[in-house]
Each structure stands twice: as C-alpha cells, then as structure tokens.
C-alpha cells in the first residue's frame, strides 16, 4: 500500500519509515530501536474531503446550516429537522443527526451505540449476597445483606445489563443465596422462639 509516513513510533514519537508498514515481520524504529509491527489501512492515507474541511460559503437561494449560517446545508437532522452543514452533520448508524440531538440522546440513553458505561447490577447483587459469607466473621451481616441482594436482583432483573453477551445466572445465584440466608435466619429465629 502506498501510504505516506504519518505514523510515529509509540516510544520516541518520531515518524516511522513507511518501509515498516504492512511488513510481514517486526521492524525496528531507526531512532530508538523499538521493535514494532505495523498494519496500516486506507483511512490513513485517504484525503480529507472538502466537506469535512468546512466546505464553501453559502450562495444565494441555498439553504444554510442552522448552526453556521454562512455554510450551505447538506442534510436535515433526522431527529429535529434542522438543516446541517457538512461540519454539523453527524452520521450515526445511517442517521444524520445534529450535535445537539446527539448530546441529548447520549444523556437520555436513547442511542445505545453511544453508551460509554454500564453498571453491572447482577455483580453487585451477587457480591452483596456472597461477601458476608466469604468473610466468615461478618456472617451476621447477612440479616441485612440478604434482603438487599434479593431486592437488587428483583429490581434490576429487567434492566439492561452489559452490552456483551451475559446470562442472568448471577441474578439467579444471588436470589438463591439470599433466600437461603433468609431461610436460615427464619429457622434460627424459630429455634430460639421454641427454646
């Protein structure tokens, strides 16, 4: 591939020779001796389109961008309908969106493909159920933690967990362990009451 040398060595930050690009084996940075293997892809050498650079100024009888009145509009926002120039037009999963809609969608959690973080409630429930038993000395905390684990499991059962493939086995285990603990407490209270 005829790619210009735009990459730098991760260690010394000097430009790497293009002879190292897509070489079958590891090569050595001429400056610092760092051993690297580099795979470059067409995006590295693809020219920037004029649109991304900002484009030309708006002409008479042309629709202008809502955010940049001096730039011509290239597409309407699929969410709010505002006209957008090439700079403001954000393409997400085939949809043309404006930055404001993307921001609000990210805040509201409308766009799952913009999610940066998820809380794993199944892990929390399981650990709340298991930790007091594992630590042995704090077993008596199960009088509080068992109902909490049970609540967490039921409350968040249907809430989206991880983005990755994941079963409900942790929730299930937390429920079983928590119920067993509650059962044991019940039995203990019953025995004390009998005595």
């Amino acid at each position, binding site marked *: 591939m005829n790619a210009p040398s*735009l*990459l730098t060595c991760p260690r010394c930050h000097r430009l790497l020779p293009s002879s190292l690009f897509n070489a079958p084996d590891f090569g050595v940075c001429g400056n610092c001796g760092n051993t690297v293997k580099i795979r470059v892809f067409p*995006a590295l050498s693809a020219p920037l389109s004029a649109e991304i650079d900002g484009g030309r100024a708006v002409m008479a009888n042309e629709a202008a961008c809502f955010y940049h009145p001096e730039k011509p509009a290239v597409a309407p926002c699929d969410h709010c309908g505002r006209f957008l120039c090439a700079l403001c037009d954000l393409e997400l999963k085939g949809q043309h969106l404006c930055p404001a809609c993307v921001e609000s969608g990210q805040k509201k959690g409308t766009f799952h493909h913009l999610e940066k*973080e998820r809380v794993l409630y199944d892990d929390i429930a399981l650990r709340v159920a298991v930790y007091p038993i594992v630590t042995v000395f704090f077993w008596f905390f199960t009088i509080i933690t068992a109902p909490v684990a049970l609540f967490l499991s039921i409350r968040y059962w249907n809430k989206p967990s991880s983005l990755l493939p994941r079963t409900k086995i942790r929730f299930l285990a937390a429920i079983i362990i928590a119920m067993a603990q509650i059962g044991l407490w019940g039995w203990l209270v019953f025995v004390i009451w009998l005595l």
Partner: protein
Amino acid sequence: MARKQASPYRRVSGRNLTRHSLWQADDHLLHVRRSEFTERYERFYFRDIQAIVIQRTATSRVLAAIMLGLLALTLILALTRASRGAMVFWWILTAVLGAAALWNWRLGPTCVCYLMTAIDRYRLKALSRVAAAERVLTRLQPVIQRAQADLELLAAPEAPTADRANEPGLYLRHTHATHAGLVEPPPVVHHGAVIRHGAVIHYAAFGLMLVNGLCLAAVLAWFGLLTGVSYVVTLAVLSVTLILALIKQADTDLPARVQRCVWAQLAYVSASVVLSLNFAPMSLSPYLRPYLRGLGMLMPGRYGMSPGDSPVFVGLSIMLIAAALLIGGMGLVFLRQFRQASAPQNV
C-alpha cells in the same frame, strides 16, 4: 431463565476474569474495561481505523528471569531444608512458581498494542501478548479493509508528497499521535529533555546499585547489625528509585541498552529481596531472638549463624555482588556515553 441476552458482539480477545477485553460487532470494535461493578466502553469503527501497531516489550523476558531466579532459590531452599514442614512449604512454592513460569512461556512474548484513528492513538490493553495480537490482527484485517474499500480507491493514486503538508486539516488529524502530519516534527532537543526528566533518576539507580553491591560484600566480610541494616536500607532505597526510573523511562527515548539495564536491575532487586529475607533472621537473631521464633519452621538453623557458614548463601551473594557491579557499572557507562553523544545538541 439464564438464557443469554442477544448481543451483536463476538469476543475477539481477553478472558472472563481479565479486566480488559476486545469485542467485534458488524461495523466496529468494542474495547471493554471492567472495574468492580461497571463496564466502560470504547468503540472503534472499522471505517475510522488508520493503523494498528504492535510494539514488542521485554516484560515477558523480565518476568521469566524473575520467576526462574525465584524458582532456583526456592528449589535450593527446598533441597536444603531438613524439617519436613519447611520442605513441603518450599516444594509447594517451587511448584507454583514453576507453573507460573511455564504459563508465561506458553503465552509467549509480551507487547503493547495501539490502534490509531484520525483523532487519537488508543492503547488496546486487551492485547498484551504478541501471539494474541497477531491472531486478532489477522482476523480484523480483512474486515477493516472491507469497511474501507471505497477509501482505498481514493487513496491509491495519491503518492506521499510534501505538498500534502499544506493541506488544511491534515495537521489536526495527527496532532495527538504525531504532533505533526506529513510536516516534519518540530525540532525537539529530545536528549536534553531526557537528561533533565529521566536520566537523573537513572544515575541514582545505577549508583545505588553499586553501593548496594558493596554493602552486600561488606555483609559477607564483616557480618553484623550495621552492615546488615545498611544493606537492607540501600536495597529499600534502590527499590523505590528503580520503580521511579521504570516509570520515567516509559516516555523518554533513553537508549534501549540503558533501559535494558534498568530491567536487569529489577531482576537483581527481586533476587536480593529474597536473599535478604533469608538472611534477615541471621542478622537480627542475636537482638530479636525472642520475637523471631515463628520463623524457625521456614528457616531452621538460621539463628546464630553467620552468612559465611552457608555455602548457598555465599554463592548467591557473590553472584549478586558481581551482578550489581556489572549492571550498575555498565548503566553508568552507557548513561555517560549517551550524555556525551547528546551534548552538542543541547548547545
């Protein structure tokens, strides 16, 4: 009930227990970082990936050296113990270390993997072994090329010319990763910068290593509380200095041979810590005998001994003294050469 949720992601790298993992969707890669109760996601669309760089590192070799050193020590201790309890303990430790060394050898050399986009350079922490990184690269290469098929047509006729340096936006595209696109990077007096920020701590580390070697020689020659404590104190200071040097050198362009010396120091310090743990009861027993009875199971017969009484201890000590003088001396010489070579550029 425990049915798997439908997910567009397929695992590319990383295991269930690891903190970082890499997943593939139809149009992007997902890098996942797991903390205690959360998962953090970074998406890299195949269309935006400019390059993937695998940088080989020496971590696996350092790990192997440390593990083999410890393995040899525990083996010696296991073979020389008289008491059954101590023997069992050291044999178990030897087995664990042996298994860890084998596992490290099986995984192969280590690496740091970077993914470049027009915006930034990202470290893929899920890929830390060369074999795994190459496997992932082989798998992703056709997918990325397919996603960038139209870009390939655009890029092909273009030759790398200096004219592109004036292209608007090009500089911005590579600001973080390169601090310059096709434009030659601004002149950096990098050697001077390294001397100021990194090499001082390296000088200290190599100097301390020589002092530590001499202290160990003093322990062998004049065994006593003073020599023992001075050896342990210099070892502690050296350990801290070494950690600082390792942190500092990551972002400098110190010569590779100096950096290798620092990694060798790490192996030395690890071996020294084990040795000092073994000899501490000898050094302190006349003073702290009542408090050290518990160590008797692991190191029987150490109380009241001097280091010269144990041929194993003497042999290991001599090896460590030689290593300290050799590595410390070489490191100082290399640093001096490096400083001399960079002196004209600092003017």
